[in-house]
Structures are given as structure tokens and as C-alpha cells.
């Protein structure tokens, strides 16, 4: 591939990346042959989005500064990779994707302001972005008012559905219920100690977990439930309580810097995770980097993607990601979900035969992405994804070893009956 075929890209990484592309048969198979017949712009763009005969503009809206940069960096990297790959495979409806990146700066009003800029000034055909629920809640009215399309990557608490958002991560019931069933069945777990950072996602998730444990699992009970302020670094007291109550399972939804403190102190207090079952839904490979693999080895995590997954898509995805962003980078669940965003958008646009937001929103249900690193995903009527739920066990090298996966795709259910 020569540079002339890549008019829309300005990334300095382009050349390096293109060399990497050669090693990606699985991905390039997905793309149609380029420039076969490019439909006229007036036909595919009736609402004045930033689409020309050769280019289409999308937005990337994440925090690259501030507290959340730790988490959101991986998502930005994955989205850029997906865009590069889509362009290398011929673009979308014959048009190269050009992206405009804005920084939400870990500040929710800034997210809303930048979202407005991307939609109103830049007329972005789609936006990949946000990470925390707070930032998503801040931009949601903007996307609904100006009729934009947001691809949101993080696993989250559910209780939301919008025509203008595609949720590429798992909602809470997908992530929680299968994991609890698994630990109950294979480990014979009967008593659970629920822990979390003190904000909406851990609280809603633990609420669902508690309802499931008490209402659906035979003879199981919750022996403790506790929350810590975000950024809390002292866990010795709760660790003592855990020692006192001796739960079969510690169910931990602690986020950010607190995670590091929690697992280090757990280990220092003599709780051996090879004997004590700990199940988390908040620690991806990204977080293990900071925690240190030796401090969390033995813990179980329940999510939909692990870097170590053994399938053809993932075997192409992981080296491509490392080639673009460095050998040492790790890929967590959300990073993979962020990678799905541009691809799902491309597939939806091609299905709809149009960039118009209304047509994309209507065409989204049923769109399948067979090249997903997690295997196979399909968009549900409620704009969330059908996906498998998996349990992995942390190893000292910072990777998860796949222990269990659901046989079928799990249906997304953002408004679970009986769990609210």
C-alpha cells in the first residue's frame, strides 16, 4: 500500500502502522475492495454531516489529561487503531475516516462542551467517546438535542438507553449474573462480601449482585456490603472485617488508585488469593499494570474480554495494537470495547447505505461484527451488545487465564426486572 491511497490520514504513525497491516489478514478480509463504486455524497448524507466525496469526519472524545487519563488512554489508542485499519481496508462507503480528537480533561462540563463542538462545529458523523458514567450523562442531552451518534465503550451500570448511543461495553446484568452463577456452581460459594468505591456504578452493580445472591442463588447470603470514597487508600479495617466474617467470596468493585492500595494491603494482611476466592468486575489488564501482577495473582475477574483470549481475531488484534502503541502496552476489556466502536459504526453505515444519524440508529439493531477480538458481537434492539461473559484468573505476569465462558451470547438487559 502506498501513501497515495491514504489521502485522509495525517497520523505520523501511518507508515509504521501500514507495515503492520500486512500482518492482518483477518481484519483486511472484512473490508470491501476499495473504490468499487462510491455512492454520491448527496445520497448518503442528507443532513449536512461532515462527509465529502473522499472523506468522512468522526470525533474522538476522551480524557487525555486529568484523573481519568489513566483509564481512557487505552480507549483512545484502540479507536485510532480501528480507524487506521478501516481506512487501510477501504474506508466507509468508499470514504476515508478523518478524526478530530477532543480532550474531556476528566471534567464533565468540558465533555458536554466538547461534544457540542464536535457535533455543531465539526458536524462529526459519529463520536467515539466517554468513559465514566458521569461523562456520558453529561453529553447525553447534547447528543439527543443535536442528533449525534455516540459509541460508548465502558462496562456500566445500565438503566439507560438512547437512540443516540451504542453501548459497546457490557451493562451490569451481563457482567454480574453469569459470574455469580459460575462462582456459586464451581466454587460452592454461599457467602459474599460486597465491596465498592462509592459512586453509581459499584452501588448499582452491588445492588444487582445482592438481589441475585439473595433471590436466585439457593442458600446464599451477603455477609457485608461496604463502600469507600473514591481515591481511598486505607483498607486495613475492612480487611479485618473480612477476616472476621470469613466470606466464601470477596466481591470487589473498587476503581482507580484505590485498587492498587486494596490489593497490596490484602496481600500484606496475609489473605492468600489462591485460597480465598475474590471476584472482581473492575480490574482489567490495564489496572493490573499499576497493581502489580504478583499482588493480585489468583483473583478472578468477570468481564467479556481478556487479552489472552485464544481466537483468530484476537491473535491479529493484539499484535496490531502492540505494533502501533508499543510492546509493553496491555489491552483491557474497555480498550477492546472501544475498538468495536468504529467498526460497528462502519458496518452500520454500510448496512444503512447512509451516514444519516436516524438511518444509522434504525439500522443498528442486528448489525454483527464477526471480526471482534472478543469473538462475535451483535447489536440488540436496545443498542447494547449481545456478548459472551467470561471469567478469567489473574496470573503473576499481569495477564488473565480464561477459566469459563458462557456457552451463548448473553442478552443485554439495561432495565432488569426484579433487580431494581
Amino acid at each position, binding site marked *: 500500500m502506498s501513501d497515495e491511497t491514504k489521502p485522509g490520514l495525517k497520523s505520523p504513525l501511518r507508515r509504521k502502522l501500514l507495515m503492520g497491516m500486512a500482518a492482518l489478514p483477518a481484519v483486511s478480509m472484512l473490508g470491501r475492495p476499495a473504490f468499487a463504486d462510491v455512492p454520491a455524497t448527496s445520497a448518503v448524507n442528507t443532513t449536512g454531516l461532515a462527509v465529502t466525496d473522499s472523506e468522512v469526519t468522526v470525533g474522538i472524545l476522551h480524557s487525555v489529561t486529568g484523573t481519568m487519563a*489513566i483509564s481512557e*488512554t487505552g480507549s483512545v489508542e484502540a479507536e485510532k487503531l480501528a480507524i487506521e485499519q478501516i481506512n487501510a481496508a477501504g474506508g466507509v462507503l468508499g470514504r476515508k475516516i478523518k478524526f478530530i480528537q477532543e480532550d474531556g480533561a476528566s471534567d464533565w462540563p468540558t465533555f458536554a462542551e466538547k461534544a457540542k463542538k464536535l457535533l455543531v462545529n465539526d458536524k462529526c458523523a459519529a463520536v467515539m467517546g466517554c468513559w465514566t458514567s458521569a461523562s456520558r450523562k453529561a453529553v447525553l442531552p447534547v447528543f439527543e438535542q443535536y442528533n449525534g451518534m455516540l459509541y460508548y465503550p465502558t462496562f456500566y451500570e445500565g438503566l439507560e438507553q438512547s437512540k443516540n448511543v451504542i453501548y459497546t461495553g457490557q451493562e451490569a446484568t451481563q457482567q454480574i449474573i453469569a459470574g455469580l452463577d459460575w462462582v456459586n456452581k464451581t466454587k460452592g460459594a454461599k457467602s459474599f462480601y460486597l465491596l465498592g468505591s462509592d459512586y453509581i456504578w459499584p452501588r448499582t452493580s452491588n445492588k444487582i449482585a445482592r438481589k441475585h445472591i439473595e433471590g436466585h442463588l439457593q442458600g446464599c447470603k451477603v455477609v457485608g456490603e461496604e463502600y*469507600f470514597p473514591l481515591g481511598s487508600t486505607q483498607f*486495613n479495617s475492612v480487611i479485618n472485617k473480612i477476616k472476621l466474617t470469613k466470606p466464601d467470596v470477596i466481591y470487589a468493585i473498587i476503581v482507580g488508585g484505590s485498587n492498587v*492500595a486494596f490489593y497490596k494491603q490484602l496481600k*500484606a494482611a*496475609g489473605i492468600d488469593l489462591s485460597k480465598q476466592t475474590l471476584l472482581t468486575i473492575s480490574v482489567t489488564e490495564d489496572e493490573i499494570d499499576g497493581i502489580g501482577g504478583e499482588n493480585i495473582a489468583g483473583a478472578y475477574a468477570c468481564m467479556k474480554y481478556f487479552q489472552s483470549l485464544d481466537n483468530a481475531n484476537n491473535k491479529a488484534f493484539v499484535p496490531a495494537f502492540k505494533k502501533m502503541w508499543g510492546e509493553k502496552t496491555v489491552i483491557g476489556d474497555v480498550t477492546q470495547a472501544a475498538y468495536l466502536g468504529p467498526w460497528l459504526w462502519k458496518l452500520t453505515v454500510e448496512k444503512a447505505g447512509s451516514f444519516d444519524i436516524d438511518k444509522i440508529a434504525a439500522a443498528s439493531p442486528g448489525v454483527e461484527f464477526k471480526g471482534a477480538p472478543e469473538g462475535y458481537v451483535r447489536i440488540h434492539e436496545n443498542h447494547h451488545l449481545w456478548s459472551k461473559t467470561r471469567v478469567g484468573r489473574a496470573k503473576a505476569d499481569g495477564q488473565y487465564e480464561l477459566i469459563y465462558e458462557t456457552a451463548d451470547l448473553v442478552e443485554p438487559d439495561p432495565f432488569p426486572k426484579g433487580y431494581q
Partner: protein
Amino acid sequence: MFGDYSISDLGAILAMQGFAGLILFSVYVLMALGLAIIFGQMGVINMAHGEFMILGAYVTWMTSNAVQHVAPWLFPGYFFIAMILAFIASGALGMLVEWALIRHLYKRPLDTLLATWGLSLILQQAYRSIFGAREVGVELPEWMMGSWQATDSIQIPINGMFVMALTILITIVVFYILFWSSWGKQVRAVVQNRVMAGAVGINTEKVDRYTFGLGCGIAGIAGSAFTMIGSTGPTAGQLYIVDTFLVVVFGGAASLFGTIASAFSISQTQSTLEFFLSGSMAKVITLLTIVAILMVRPQGLFALKVRK
């Protein structure tokens, strides 16, 4: 909640909980000491204190990597080297900052608040650009992790005891420096009456610079020690700053004894409440108590009597 447990179980928990409180106490003292020196002796409100701590943490991380590559046999003991390097790095940066920024603002103490807050933002972004936005994992020698099995059911975290020992050592050294050395006398003279201290031949500028450097250096050591119990990332310093100010203000701004007394009372309240309530509620009640006490006694627990 205690109905189902045996006496020996409860005894063991009580002992471990007591240690948890003491460890929290040491952590508070260690992080507040540097700030207390700067705030108490110089009246400078150093909002970048957390970032000086994180510089220490990053130095520890770099030392750990360097030692693993160059001299793996040194690894079990690298932490001591790292702490010394952390002290030097943070102290040197502190002196540089004092020279470039703080000394111009001594007459406007509230502006130091703004200036050092700006500095903290600059440092955070600098860490992010240099070390990356992601957290780094500091690898510790095996002997520092794990716990000491005191009895069958009592386990005491080794890193907690390490922090305690370190805190005691540093506190003794600081007290020696400030209250028995001749340099300490100069510092206290400058605090009490800057003009007179200058008149009797004390180089007040130099005293200021070294005092600020000492405070920042201790913050660096604290940051280095906290890699054992917390995270190391560009914004991790923010996790400590609120607690640190709380301890210093509650103790009485100009008193090191006050800092220690306040660290003790806050940590004991916090860890006792945490055991009976949830973490968030414990924090709320602790903060409310402190606010109430400060309303009655705005100068804090201990106040130094200074002729104004």
C-alpha cells in the same frame, strides 16, 4: 454483630484492628510531617505537596527498574537507596521551586496557595508526559510483602510495620534537627521574628530555602514509602492531599506536636469507625467531628504562641 464469634477470634481481630489504627497513624504522620514543616515554619500553603510525594514514588519506581537491570543482587535492599534518592530529588526540586517561585510570595501567603496549586497541575501534567498516563507498578522485594504471623490468628502486615518504623525514625530526626541543632534554632528564630533574625546575622533566605527543601524531601520519602500501600500515577498525589491538610490544620498549623496528636486522633477515630460502619460513613463522621472541633477551636489542637 459479634454474637457468632468466639472470644479468641474477637481478641485477634481487636489486636489486628489496633495495628491497623497504628499503621494509619504512621501513614498520616509521614505524609503530614513535610507539610507541617513548610506550613508551620514558613506559613506557606503548599498545595503541590502530593506531587512532591509522587516524585518520590516515581524515583522509587525508576530505582527499582534500574537495580533490576544493573545489579539484581541489590534488589532486596534497593528500597533504602530509593528512599534516599527520593529525598534528594524531592528536596532539590523543592529548593528550586522555593528559589523560582515561593520566595517572591512570602508577603502574600494566600497567593502561595494559588501558585503552588498551579505548580501541582504543572507537575501532574509533567509526570503524565514523561511517565505516561497509566499507573506504574513498583515491584517490591519479596520480604516486604506478606505478613508476620504473630499467633495463629493474628497477622500483621510487614509493610505496615516498615512504615511505622520509618515514621518513628523520621520524626526523631526532624525533632532533632528543629529543636537541638543550631540550624533548627535559626529556623525557629526566623519563624518567630524574621527581621530580628536577619539583624543578628542569620541568612534568612538560606534558612527558608533549606526549610522548604527539607519539607519537600520528607514528602519524597513519604511518597517512596507509600508505593508499598498505594498507587503510583500522575494524579495519585491528589489522593493524599486532603487528609494531609486535615491533619496539619487540625493539629494547629505551627506545631509539630499538634500534627502528631491530630494524626493520632484522626486515625484512631477513622479506623474504629471504619470497623463498625462502612468506609464512606466513617469518613463523613470523622470529617464532621473535625469541622465541629475546628469551629470551637479554630487554631487547632495545639497553637504556638507567637508575638505578632
